């Protein structure tokens, strides 16, 4: 999957990472909206997928993103205690604490996968998080140069 390609001699010139952001509708998606209405600029690498709750994000979605060539994945939800559905993000927290460790254990650079709590009022935080993850992923280089390397 996202084998680090350091030293493979593959040129990364002109490469821009693609980062998928799963954002819960009520907080993080709204936070991203607020970044927009406040015109807070951030790197263009993120593509947001709207989900009702971070608790809707199946870890298999995250893996699929990496499988298909995403360079980074962000899961963003309401702060603990603020979940629109009361408890969804507590399950998210448990699940992704494990996922993050498992991915790292499998040798996937942990900075490629991040979970953050971003409220609807944190437009600036949303922009900052995107800037941060983009910068980190850029420094790491492409997760997988050839998306269809294996099966395709």
């Amino acid at each position, binding site marked *: 999957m996202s084998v680090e390609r350091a030293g493979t001699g593959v040129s990364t010139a002109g490469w821009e990472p693609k980062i998928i952001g799963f954002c819960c509708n009520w907080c993080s998606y709204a936070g991203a909206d607020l970044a927009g209405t406040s015109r807070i600029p951030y790197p263009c690498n993120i593509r947001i997928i709207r989900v009702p709750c971070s608790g809707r994000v199946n870890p298999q979605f995250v893996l699929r993103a990496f499988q298909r060539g995403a360079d980074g994945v962000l899961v963003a939800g309401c702060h603990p205690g603020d979940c629109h559905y009361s408890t969804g993000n507590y399950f998210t927290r448990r699940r992704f604490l494990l996922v993050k460790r498992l991915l790292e254990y499998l040798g996937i650079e942990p900075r490629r996968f991040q979970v953050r709590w971003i409220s609807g009022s944190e437009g600036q935080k949303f922009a900052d998080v995107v800037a941060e993850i983009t910068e980190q992923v850029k420094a790491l280089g492409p997760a997988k140069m050839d998306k269809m390397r294996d*099966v*395709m």
Partner: protein
Amino acid sequence: MTKVLPQGKLKDFLKDTMDKYSLVAPVREDGVVVLKPTADPEAVVTDYLNTVTSPKDFFFPQTERMFRFQKTEGKIRVEETTWQGKRVIFGVRPCDLGSLELIDRVFQEGEYEETYYLARRENTTVVGLACSSPGPTCFCTTFGITPGSPEGADLMLYPDGEGFVVEVLTEKGEALAQQTETLLEDQDVDLAEVKGRFEGLKVPLGDHLSVDGVAAKLDGMFEHPVWAELSPRCLGCGICTYLCPTCHCFGMTDEVRGDQGVRLRCWDSCQFSDFTRMAGGHNPRPTKKERVRQRFMHKLNYYVHRFGRYLCTGCGRCLEKCPVGLTMVHVIEKVNDSGTREVAVNE
């Protein structure tokens, strides 16, 4: 005079081979010996009973990319993928050599030729390795194969003293022998004698297991209670079929990414519960009984009717790896022991 490859020159033999061919050879990895492409002669081993995976993987790969397709301007462009290259598979045991001939019939005979398979067959040189000490799971002799049978190899190696006696069997084998000729020594060895020694080796399990008349007996055993007796312990996994050097079932699937994609041909296993499940949900082989019966009937009856041979070479992988001992040996014994007049009582 007979060509002999001294033991000490084996690595060089593999190295020279790699000048012209890509190499697939037995490699010990995490406690198992697998056949896999390797560029490192040092990694190649010869001290194995047999490789856990069989050589069929390199002719009939688990996933075959048949063609690419792409939609452009409302049209679909199809680009066939062809396999290219020259490859040597080293260290194939007689049972597995025999299995290639069995699959050849499936993919070669009849109205249609299986071009992907044949391209690989034509461009691959198979180096056989005779067995010095058959193991407790070996039963090749049941199917007329011996620890020294070279059939299926292009070039056969017989371990003998401090080296390998070489037998060139085909043009491809000859080409490989020429490629490595500097390493092959002409020695005064009686090839027939060496071969005879291997052919005469005891294969305890195989020597006592007879398959005579099994196919004919099975003609009347489709509804026999033996299947209900054998099948409950099956896990429904694909170990037997995927490790078996002669199983060759597959399914086809498209992987699509946007406006392009590939058609894949992937191994499938008749032991999987969804193997015959239809789109509407109906499954003509709904339980393990039908699925287990299918596998053994195919090997011991249907294939025999079509091609005149049993679809098993006694490699023993199912004995070694089936977690629940649902093995060819067990089934043959059961069939031999069962009375033909019995009919299913539970149907």
